[in-house]
Structure formats: C-alpha cells, structure tokens
C-alpha cells in the first residue's frame, strides 16, 4: 500500500506535467460542446430529438470522446511504453510490485475521465441549459459500467501488445470504432438504424447514458452487456498481461 501511494503520487506528478495531453483529455469534449453550443439552431428544441435541443442530445456522445481517448488510447499506450522501456521490469526487481504502477495508471485514468465528465455536465448545464442527468443513479451506473468496459478493453490491448507501436496499432482502430458507434463522428440520428442499434451495445453504451441523462432509466440489457464486456475483457487482460 505504501509503495502504491508513492507510485501514485509520482505518476500523478508526471501526468500533471504533461499539460497538452492533460488539457486535451479533460477539456476537449467541453470545447466541442461550447463550439456546437454557440450555433443558435443547435440550442433550439427539435422534434427530431423528442423536443430536446441538439446539444442535449449530443452531450452523451461527447462523454464518449474522453472515455475512448483515455480508455483505449492513452492507458494502453502508457502501459505498453512502460513495459517496452523496462520500467515494469525494473520495478519487479524492487520490493514494489509492477501491479502497483498499473493500478496507479488506472486511478489516474479514472480521475481524468471523471474530471472531464464533470466539466462537461456542469458547462452544459450552466452555459446551454442542458439539465443535469435526470436519472442520477442510472446515469452513474451507466457511466461506471461504460467506463469499466472501455478501461478493460484498454487493459486487454496493453496486455496483448508487446510494444508501444503494437499497442497503437490495436488501439487506433478500436478508438475509431468506439467513436463512430458512440455517435461522435456522425450524430447517431444520422446513422442507419442498424448502426445506431449496434452502438447501443458497444462500449461505453451511449444509449444508456442518453436515456439516463434525458429522463428514463437505462435498459438493463444495455447495462448488462457493458458489465459482461468489462468482466471478460478484464479477466482476459489479467490472464494475458505480461510485465516484460
């Protein structure tokens, strides 16, 4: 525990020192929100979105941006870099276990995701009148499970990729798919219905987030699928993870 605390503190310092990545991770979704929110027509209630504004409808997809960036992109490439450079191996020769470093990276990934989500939700509420999630419990649950599913996938990538390059080769398509099905590139109402339905079940489960944010409780099946992905990818990562 002692070693973990010190490693976490050091890793947090390194994380804060990398300002461009930090700002992108935490601020990018909010920046996109603000840009879209400045367009007046996107702030008008629209029957296409059951009488909500486009900004409200699109906000959950913006959550996907951070989740995808941190979960399937940053986390695996940081871990693969640490492995490739022998940081994990060196740690294995000391009384500290390299798992402490992995845990510290997970904590930082979660902290970044949480900060980004809070910033987005608060700015959306204050600047564009997007209500706070109407179903807080369902939203929290959908957010936790979606995050867990993506982080587990990220860990799985880090587990099977031997080098930083290999990690990126796996992470980039996964990132693009996550963003696409999450309705980031094209808002989901423009996607063919079948694609949008697939997106309900790909992590982080944007439909569950949207449901909980705008009113109803998320569908149990959506949540269950996220839980299954999180557990199976996590178990796979634990089994396959190599420290060197």
């Amino acid at each position, binding site marked *: 525990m002692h070693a973990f605390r010190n490693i976490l503190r050091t890793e947090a310092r390194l994380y804060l020192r990398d300002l461009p990545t930090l700002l992108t991770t935490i601020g990018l979704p909010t920046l996109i929100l603000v840009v879209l929110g400045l367009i007046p027509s996107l702030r008008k209630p629209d029957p296409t979105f059951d009488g909500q504004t486009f900004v409200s409808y699109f906000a959950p997809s913006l959550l996907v941006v951070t989740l995808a960036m941190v979960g399937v992109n940053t986390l695996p490439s940081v871990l693969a870099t640490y492995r490739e450079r022998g940081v994990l191996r060196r740690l294995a*020769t000391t009384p500290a276990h390299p798992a402490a470093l992995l845990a510290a990276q997970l904590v930082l990934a979660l902290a970044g995701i949480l900060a980004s989500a809070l910033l987005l939700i608060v700015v959306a509420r204050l600047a564009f009148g997007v209500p706070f999630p109407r179903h807080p419990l369902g939203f929290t649950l959908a957010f936790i499970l979606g995050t867990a599913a993506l982080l587990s996938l990220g860990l799985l990538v880090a587990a099977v990729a031997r080098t930083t390059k290999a990690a990126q080769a796996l992470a980039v398509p996964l990132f693009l798919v996550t963003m696409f099905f999450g309705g980031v590139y094209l808002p989901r109402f423009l996607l063919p219905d079948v694609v949008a339905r697939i997106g309900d079940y790909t992590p982080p489960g944007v439909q569950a987030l949207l449901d909980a944010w705008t009113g109803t409780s998320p569908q149990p099946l959506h949540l269950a699928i996220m839980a299954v992905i999180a557990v199976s990818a996590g178990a796979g990562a634990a089994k396959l993870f190599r420290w060197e």
Partner: protein
Amino acid sequence: MPVIEVTHLKKRYGDLVAVDDVSLAVEAGEIFGVLGPNGAGKTTTVECVAGLRVPDGGGVSVLGLDPRRDAAQLRQRVGVQLQESQLPDRLRVAEALELYASFYRNPADPAELIDKLGLGDKRNTAYKKLSGGQKQRLSIALALVGNPEIAILDELTTGLDPQARRDTWGLIEQVRDSGVTIVLVTHFMEEAERLCDRVAVIDRGRVVALDSPAGLVSTVAPEQRIRFRPSAPVDDRLLTDLPEVSAVQRTGSQVVVTGTGELLHAVTSVLARHQIVAADLRLEQSTLDDAFVELTGHRPAN
C-alpha cells in the same frame, strides 16, 4: 561462504536453450564478472539469480535463500540494474531516487547517493534530458538505493564514451569497498580485467572457464613475446636452449622471442651472462581478450 550459488542451472525458451549447464559461486565482497559472447546465456543466468525467471532445472541460492520462494526478502537485499531499462521521460533524478528509496525498509539517503554518483547538479533534471552516462549513473544509483548486500549490474557501460566508462568503473570500486558484493555482466574485456576479482566465461549456455582474469590469461593464453635489439650478435641457440623459449625470430635488427612462464627473467639472465644489452626491450603478454577468443572462438564485441 558464497553469497550466490548456482548449480547446474538450465533454462530454455521454447526450442532455444539459453542456459544449458551453469554452475558458479560468488564470494562475499568480490566483484564477480560474467563474460561471454552475445546470446551465451549471461543475462538469463543473472535473471534467474535475481528471481526474474524460473529455472527449468538446477538450483539457485542467494544469501542462503531461494530467489523465487523468498523473493520478498531478497528484493530488500539485492539491487538489480537491468540491461536497457529506462525510466519515464518526465521523471526527475531526485524524484526517481526518492520513489525507489521509499520501497525499501533501510534505504540509503537519496540526496547523498545523488552527490556520490556525481548527479548533484542534475537532481531536478528530467530523465529525458540526461546524457547516456548520467542515465547509467542514475540506473546504478537505483540499484544501490536499497542499501543492498549484493548488486547485480548487467551491461553496465554499454553505450558510454570512454571517459564515462572509466568514471563508472571508479564508482563500482567504491561500491565494492563499502562491502557490497557485485555481479557484473559484461562483454568488455578491459572492464572485466580492470574490475573483476574473478570471472566466469559463459559460452553456449555453459561455463567454459572460471578464474581470476590474470589466472585465466596465464592458463588459457600463456604465450608471451619479448622484442629487443641486442647490443652484440646473439646466437639463436643461446635462447632456444632455454626451457621457457618456444621460438626465436628475427626481423631486421630486432629479435623476437616467444615462450611461456618466467620468460623475461630467463632471457634477460642469459643475455646478461653474455654481456649483451637488450635495447628497446618490450614484453607483450596476452590479455583477457586473447583468452576470450581462445575460449569461445569469438572476438569480443568491441
């Protein structure tokens, strides 16, 4: 009483036999060199000693403990510097040492260690901005920050310029003088000759020789050569009759005598008896380099 004992160690990776049969014992307080061509099994051997790999056969005992079963204890007492092991780019020198010091029950003072390793003016420098020599010194410092009884250093000076290499050697001698047993994996013969009390030469997964560097040279490559310019003509037979001499050659006015044992003494005595002065006298002895080639059939990597 040896602090490290390796007996009939075996380790294979799939079809590749990395270590076939390695036995060696390292005594407390010595600098023990592990030499060998690339791929000979040096690193695998020390990785088994460090508890990073599980041997397929044979035994390893470190400080009387089992590197796998007693890993937690040994990690407190053995410092390891691995080949090609780096740190995060943005981590600063002092931060790295303070972090690693915090893992140990009885660590060295990081600030003192930084000064001792000549990194005093770099304590707030990021790892990325350090030179190769400074990175290497930091790496050694990390292996020593736990106040280990044994330090295992793999490819200590690879990639360093000659000055940095010499500085590092001085440092290792200091560490040994403070009572730490050192296992040094290297393919630089000059380094082994300068630092090691004893060396094991490993080739194709086996120990092919184990001795002091000087002992190794005199048994494996005992040939010596004396060159001189005699002040008066010398009859070859005068020299060839000596039991130490194996051959006499002449190149111009120079005489070249090859032989073994107390060659220099034998040759100079016989010349003195005949009142011949040997001008420009030079003795050429084999080096560890020659012994290495003799043992492994490979040229050392530099």
